């Protein structure tokens, strides 16, 4: 078994790590403090072309395989989660269904600009009453002539308040539950489509997250993003594994950022005449963190490899997501202990990693749901 990244992947990792260190890391504090969409950094970073990461070279993308993609997701999250979430939304969730099902005209209006960073994309699933339970979706899409009329309110939408276009999950028939779900493209400027309340979050600040309101929004037929009607949940399955593993990769980015802070502090902070890294209990923390991070990364990259090889990866993706995000929460906890009182100061970074890590426990699937799902798969019906 060859567990190593290919030489190409190693090189990619080097470059993106360095790029994030130069462009994103210095801005991370400010992004968190201001909690506004970081337009300046967005413009600078998107010029580099990484938003086309997952799409074919023929349309200006990089055609990166899932393993390479995870390398990217890990590093961008290490730089700034607030920035990473917005970037990743454009790279994958906010554009995928447009890429997959959109007409050429739609692609030219939405996908290609989004790949350049000229437009901000988003994906709208969650509602106030439906997160894990997509069958409880109440946003409706009703056919009227050759238009769809969309009504509803979406909540917790990343990039929502600034999005130029949104992929909206809506049901054509409330009685069908999950089997009535479809994706629709709604563009900014369409009457009835407006951003609502912007959320003030504990962490991942800088990613503007909020409510999106659809009040009799009319879109043409071609805005149904799907080959067939009511196959939304099935289509979602195409990126579900990637979204889960990606969350795990982001968790490792946050964990690494925190871990590095812990390392520096353990080496330099002097107590009782010696750097605290000399003491057993501190050393034990690093042993535990490093072991779990290594295990997390093996799960993440092995799941990504399976995706790359088109092998079944549903359960591995869920494992990777769950384990890595739980590990991240442990790492940020330990690092704040290593930092002691200084972890409590907003002037330093560990507090930001501590706050950022929480979202991982439910973003991409709550662990309560994941465990039930995994258990069912493992035991059988």
């Amino acid at each position, binding site marked *: 078994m060859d567990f190593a990244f290919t030489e190409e992947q190693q090189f990619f990792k*080097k470059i993106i790590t360095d790029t994030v260190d130069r462009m994103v890391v210095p801005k991370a504090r400010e992004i968190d403090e201001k909690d506004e969409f970081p337009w300046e950094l967005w413009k600078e970073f998107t010029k*580099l072309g990484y938003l086309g990461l997952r799409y074919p070279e023929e349309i200006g993308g990089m055609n990166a395989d899932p393993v390479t993609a995870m390398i990217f997701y890990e590093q961008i999250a290490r730089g700034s989660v607030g920035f990473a979430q917005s970037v990743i939304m454009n790279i994958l969730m906010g554009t995928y269904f447009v890429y997959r099902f959109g007409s050429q005209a739609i692609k030219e209006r939405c996908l290609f600009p989004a790949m350049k960073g000229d437009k901000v994309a988003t994906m709208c699933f969650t509602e106030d009453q439906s997160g894990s339970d997509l069958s409880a979706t109440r946003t409706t899409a009703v056919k009227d002539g050759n238009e769809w009329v969309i009504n509803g309110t979406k909540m917790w939408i990343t990039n929502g308040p600034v999005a130029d276009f949104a992929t909206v999950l809506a049901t054509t028939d409330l009685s069908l539950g999950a089997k009535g779900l479809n994706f629709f493209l709604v563009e900014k400027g369409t009457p009835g489509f407006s951003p609502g309340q912007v959320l003030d979050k504990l962490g991942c600040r800088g990613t503007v997250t909020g409510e999106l309101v659809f009040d009799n929004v009319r879109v043409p037929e071609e805005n149904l993003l799907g080959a067939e009607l009511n196959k939304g949940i099935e289509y979602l399955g195409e990126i579900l594994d990637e979204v889960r593993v990606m969350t795990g990769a982001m968790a490792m980015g946050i964990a690494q950022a925190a871990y590095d802070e812990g390392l520096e502090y353990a080496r330099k902070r002097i107590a009782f005449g010696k750097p605290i890294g000399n003491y057993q209990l501190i050393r034990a923390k690093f042993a535990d963190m490093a072991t779990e991070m290594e295990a997390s990364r093996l799960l993440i990259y092995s799941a990504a490899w399976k995706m790359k090889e088109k092998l079944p990866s549903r359960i591995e993706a869920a494992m990777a997501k769950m384990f890595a995000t739980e590990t991240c929460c442990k790492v940020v906890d330990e690092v704040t202990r290593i930092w002691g009182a200084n972890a409590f100061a907003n002037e330093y970074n560990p507090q930001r990693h501590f706050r950022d890590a929480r979202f991982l426990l439910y973003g991409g699937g709550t662990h309560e749901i994941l465990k039930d799902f995994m258990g069912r798969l493992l035991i059988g019906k």
Partner: protein
Amino acid sequence: MNILVLVKQVPDPEALVEIASSGKDLNIEPKFAINLFDEFALEEALRVREKHGGKVKAISLGGSKAIEALRTAIAMGADEAMLIEDEAFAGGDGYNTALALSKALEKETFDIVLAGRQAIDADRGEVPQMVAQFLGLPHVGVVVKLDISDGKAVVESSLEGAKEVVEVALPAVFTAQKGLNEPRVPLITGVMKAMKVQIPKVAVEDLGLTKDVAAPENSKTKIVRYLPPKKRPAVQLIPGEAREAAAEAVRILIDVERVI
């Protein structure tokens, strides 16, 4: 305009460097980077090409891992790269490094050679000037501004306390100092190209040298052992409120330490 850039892969500035128990070796954390000052050299080369046309070729002397530094050069925009692969020469002193590099450069056509002013691992700052001397070329060191026109360069060299404006006909060697430019971050298209590119490797025998030239017993200078930096005693905090502490500090500096 043919521009050559001498590039070295060095341990990452944040990599842990420890002296082995034998004292004769270093244990260095295996994290590598392109030498900081070489980035300024590379960026300048790219700017010269943007302004005057031509080609940028990055050349490195190193072990097989140094390919990564050359890929980085390609990602930034260099047209070509070449690795002189030889661990002994790469780990050798400035003289041997410069000898190998200059033999390689003898086979190249160029107008300008750009190099970093020193490598942040060995901190010698010798090689580019030695290369210039081996090749019989002029050099200007510690360059913070480079302008080319009509086959000559007008450069600003920042010697301590003064800036010298120097004119030299090409071909010539220049060493890059911080402040020369702001190195660009590679575009994804550059990264993709660099990931796929095949970088030619050259052995020292191809340059008319033999491995034993770089053997320690034949080298002009060699490292005998490594020593740790001297340790400073633990800090003495001077107590008291501002004026008191200030007065005591001055007393210590004048009467005790006799430094002022």
